[in-house]
Structures are given as C-alpha cells and as structure tokens.
C-alpha cells in the first residue's frame, strides 16, 4: 500500500527537488547565457544575469573559425559506434555472468571494474605507441576501440545487474520450447531487459561523448570530436569566455537534446529493475 504524503510535505519535497535541480543545472545555464554576451559583459563584475545586450556574434565567430560539422560528425560516429560495439560485446558477457556464473565470476567483475581505477595518463604512452605501430593515430576507428574498451566495464556491470533480476526460469522455459542460445538472447532476454539496455546505452553514449582525455591525446585533425572543438577555445592568455561558452553550448546541445527526449527511458532504466 502506498504511503500517503501530506500536501505540505509534497510541497517541500517539490521545492527542494527543484532547488537541487536548478543548482545542478546552473553552470550549464550560465554557460548558455554567457555565450550570448560580449566578451566585456562576460567578465563583468558583478555578473550580469539577464540584463545584457544579447548577441549572436560569438556563434558567428565560432562558426567562421571552426568546422563545427566535422567535429560533430566525429563525435556522433565515435560515441555511437563505441556504444554499439560495447553493447555487442557486453550483452553476451553479462548474460554468461548472470545466468551461467562460475566461482570466479565475482572476481572477474571486480577485476573489470578495477581497470577504471587506473588514471588514464598512466597508460598514455603504451597506448600512444601501440597506435603509432598500428597506424591508428588520429583515426575514428582507433578512438571507437579505445572508448569502447574504457566504458566496457561499466556496461557489463550495469547489464549484469539488470540481467540478474530476470528470473532464470523464464530462460529455462524458452530452452524447453526449443530456443537456441541466440534466440534466447535476442527474443527472450533482450526484450525483457530493454529498459536496462537502453539506459546503459544512453549512459555509455553520454560518457563517450564527454570523454576528453583520449579524444584530445589521440586525435589531431581527422578524428577530432567536439571535446577538441571546445579545447580550441580555451585560452590562458586572453579573455575569450564568451566564445568559449558559445563553443561549449554548441558541443553540449546535441547531448542535452538527446538526454531531454530520452529522460523517461533513462530514469526508468536507472531506477527500476528489469522485471518490475
């Protein structure tokens, strides 16, 4: 039976939730607002919140100076493909760990996660040398592989958690009906775990989109994604905050829109189990 919540409590909860939401969103809002200011207004003290002369000049300069389309396309390809490839590898891996566990499964899961604990810069040189040997520097394919690998532990862990909640009896019933392993995965397991898989994919896509260590260090011209686009507007000698904000807004806009449209799926996947 659902617990009844008093209107007063509901109001407080809502207010607190909105306040926290606004607090978290404020840096993004400030970046967006700054992108419409002049450079002088961007550094004004006290800061100007809304009462400034709105201008699109920064966007014009950024569009004129940079090939935004190329950076955007690279981001889409790299984040998208690394997510798809990661999913293709992670679904069978999570399935086997969830439904056919061995006594080492927990150790393997922990070991996979432990690879995330190493600072990325610690393996920069080995990976850079490997990329040189394999001719993968500044290639989208190279970045797809790297981003897929660094996000794989998270995907496997998340999918494993969802799969664990699916009763094994359902899969056994499918097997008794003559389903092969492939059919079991595709026609039984996957549809039941769709919310979980969708939220995992979305999260992985966001992580890959925002990744700013490997994407800056392994690219130059051809494969540089939007993280490199933003980095090109950061300047330690000169006040270009408005242009930097415009570039940042253009870089985060696609992922913000994606997140906005898929928030229902994302929240559902992250807060509920597969069969609830």
């Amino acid at each position, binding site marked *: 039976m659902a617990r009844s919540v008093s209107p007063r409590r509901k109001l407080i909860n809502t207010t607190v939730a909105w306040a926290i939401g606004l607090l978290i969103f404020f840096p993004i809002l400030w970046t967006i607002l700054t992108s419409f200011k002049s450079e002088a207004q961007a550094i*004004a003290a006290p800061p100007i919140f809304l009462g400034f002369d709105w201008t699109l000049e920064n966007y014009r300069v950024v569009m004129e100076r940079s090939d935004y389309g190329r950076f955007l396309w690279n981001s889409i390809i790299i984040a998208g493909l690394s997510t798809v490839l990661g999913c293709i590898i992670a679904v069978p891996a999570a399935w086997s760990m969830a439904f056919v566990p061995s006594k080492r499964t927990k150790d393997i899961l922990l070991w996979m996660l432990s690879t995330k604990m190493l600072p990325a810069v610690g393996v920069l040189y080995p990976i850079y040398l490997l990329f*040189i040997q394999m001719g993968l520097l500044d290639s989208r394919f190279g970045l797809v592989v790297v981003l897929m690998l660094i996000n794989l532990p998270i995907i496997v862990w998340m999918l494993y958690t969802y799969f664990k909640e699916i009763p094994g009896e359902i899969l056994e019933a499918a097997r008794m009906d003559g389903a092969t392993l492939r059919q079991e995965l595709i026609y039984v397991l996957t549809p039941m775990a769709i919310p979980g898989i969708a939220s995992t994919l979305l999260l992985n896509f966001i992580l890959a989109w925002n990744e700013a260590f490997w994407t800056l260090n392994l690219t130059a011209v051809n494969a540089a994604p939007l993280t490199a686009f933003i980095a090109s507007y950061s300047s330690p000698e000169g006040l270009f905050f408005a242009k930097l904000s415009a570039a940042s807004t253009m870089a985060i806009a696609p992922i913000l829109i994606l997140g906005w449209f898929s928030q229902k799926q994302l929240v559902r996947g992250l807060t509920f189990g597969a069969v609830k």
Partner: protein
Amino acid sequence: MSLKSTLSAATALTLITAGGAFADAHSATITIATVNNGDMIRMQGYTDQFTAETGIAVEWVTLEENVLRQRVTTDITTKGGQFDIMTIGMYETPIWGANDWLVPLNDLSAEYDVDDILPAMRNGLSHDGTLYAAPFYGESSMVMYRTDLMEAAGLEMPTAPTWQFIREAAAAMDDPENEINGICLRGKAGWGEGGAFITVTGNSFGARWFDEEWNAQFDQPQWADALNFYVNLMNDYGPEGYATNGFNENLSLFNQGKCGMWIDATVAASFVTGDDSTVADSVSFALAPNAEGVEKRANWLWAWALAIPAGTQQEAEAKQFIEWATGKEYIELVAANEGWANVPPGARTSLYETPEYQAVPFAKMTLDSINAADPTDPTVDPVPYVGIQFVAIPEFAGMATEVSQEFSAAYAGQQTVEEALAKAQAIATEVMEAAGYR
C-alpha cells in the same frame, strides 16, 4: 535486425570510419599544433593567403596551452608524426633541440633575415648557437599602471621602479571602498602561472633556484625576503583570493578598473588598451621592478615559436610556412589590414625601427623589457642553468608546479612562508638527487 546483420553493419561503419582518416591525407598539407591566443588566431585567418601563394594547404590543431604541451610532448617523444609544425615556447626549445627532436633552422633564406630576430629571442630559442624555433611573438613582463590613480595619489611612476616604490604606490592607490586594489599579481599554482611570477620576483631580490652545484637555494635569505615581501604586499593591497588569480583573472580585474597596478606579460598591453578595457585611456607602462641594490629586475622572457619536429615528411613545406608566418612580410600584412598595434610583437628588431610601430604606446617599453632580460644570465649569483622564469631542464615543469602549489598555499594562508620555503627546498633537493644532478 538480426545479430548477424547488426555485426555486419557495425563492421562496415567501422571500416568506413577508419578509411576516412587515410582518405583525407594530402601530399601538400601541413598540420600545425598551436595555442589559442589572439595573435595565433589572427594568423590562422591569413592562412588562405599562404595557401594561395604556395599551394600548400594548412590544417590547424588548436589546443589549450597545457593540453598542447602534453600533446606535442607525447608526440615528439614517441615520434608519432602527427604534426609538421609545433608551437612551443622557450622552455621546450633548448631541451628538445639538445635531444635532436627538432629540425635545426640553420638554412632559412636570405630574405627571411634571421639576424633581424631580437638577440634575446634568438638566444632563448637556440641550443649551442643553433636556432631550433622561429619566434612568432615574444614577450617580457612589465608594470602596467593607472595614470589617473597615480596622479590622484600624487605620485609619479619612474621608468624603472623598485619594489619599495611599488609598495608605496600600491598603498596610495588602494581604495577598498571603491573596489580598487592597489596591485594585482599572479598567485595561481602552476609553473607557467604564479610559478613564473614568483621566480622572477625571486631573481629581483637576488634569489636563485640552484647554485652552481645544483643545490636548491630556497633556504637562503633572498627567497625569504622575496616571498615575505610578495605575501605582505598582496595581503595588504591585493585582491581577495589572489592565490588563485592567474593572467586572465588579473586581466579581467584590471580591465574593469579594479587594479591600480598589474605586473605581467607585455602582451597584455594590447588588451588593457583595447576595446574591452574600461581604463584603456589611462594606462601607462614601466619596467618590471627590482629590490633596492639588486641589479636584476623581475623581467621574464618568453616566446611562442614555430618548430619542426624531426622526422616530419613535410620539412620543406614546414620551413616555407615558418618563413612566411614569422617573416617581415607577415608583419606588414597584419599592419596593413588591422593596424600596427595588432602585429605580433617582440620578435624582430626591424619592427621596433618602424616609425609607425614606434608610435604604438607600449612598443618602446616592450622592447626595453625584452632587452632587460637575459636568459643566459638570469640571476645575481651564477647559476648552472639557462632560463629566467624557468630552469631549462626536463625536470623543471613538474618540480616547479609542486613548488608553486606550496607557495600558493602560503598565499592562501594555509601555511606560513617559512613552511612553504622548507617544502620547496625539500622538493627541489629530492628531484635533483633523483635525477642525478647531484
């Protein structure tokens, strides 16, 4: 969609993405790694003219300074070959030149007139007398001050002030009620930020990083004098939170009229007198100060320069670009289109002999500041290293960043000056011993 077709589609897309990287390659295209600052961005805008003249296409990779440093260092030490030209500074050039990582620029054309490069810049970008990077623009440091506030305080800034005068002027101009700080200086941790500033301040008090035997010198009284003076000056007349202020934060404060004085890079002169400054009409300049009785001033010397990594396949094209971008004609091109105040400063003698440029308010002081800096003789007492605001050894960047973090902690009041100096001494001693200098 079946698993098989999904896999096929993913593989096909992957191959397409991999192929794209190679398809874009072009024999007459050079790739240049650079930083994002006004002069570099301006140069990118004129690249089409270079391409039209030579048929050589140019691809730019623009990165934030620290990212660029990490990126090009990784590439050159692993011979990655990602770039045909790298924008590097005076710190990297002699070290990389000594390691044969850079192509010597000893066969530039007669029209380029390599002897026209300012001697201080040429020395700082050479190793064993060989030039390894061509300066695009150069800078020193100087005092930028508000003439209106100085006048109201009844003071007159000498051309070559002492630290004692700077303190006196800061006290006179400090006006907390009107949000005016007597002085704004860098305090932010980082070897190129606050670390650079406190190192030249140390030089101007007679301090040095190492003696001739590579013994750390932070336990000497000159460092205590310098650091105590800086901390007292900033605590008394500096802005709140100065321990986290770098170039940009101080530029912002100065442009908004919140600083009586600012001692920083000469390249800032064009910003504080530019359109975004609210005090553009009341700014003047003076040489960086020294402590009374100390011959060395708090001048640093820096250049953003173009260098060619050894092993590039496009060496001839890269040299062509360097001659174009750092030559006299480029300066004339910018002057014709954007005015003399916007040409890249601090690289060529002939620029300072041009009457039109001599009329630019900050031109003479920039040249005087650069000429006052000698990277081969940076301190009062002899040192075994080259470099003014840095020590040109590979270990310096990491070590100086740690030391500057300790100093910043002292600025923020988290520890005393004595504690910071003791830690700096320990850090520098340990690094020198581990690296085999002692």
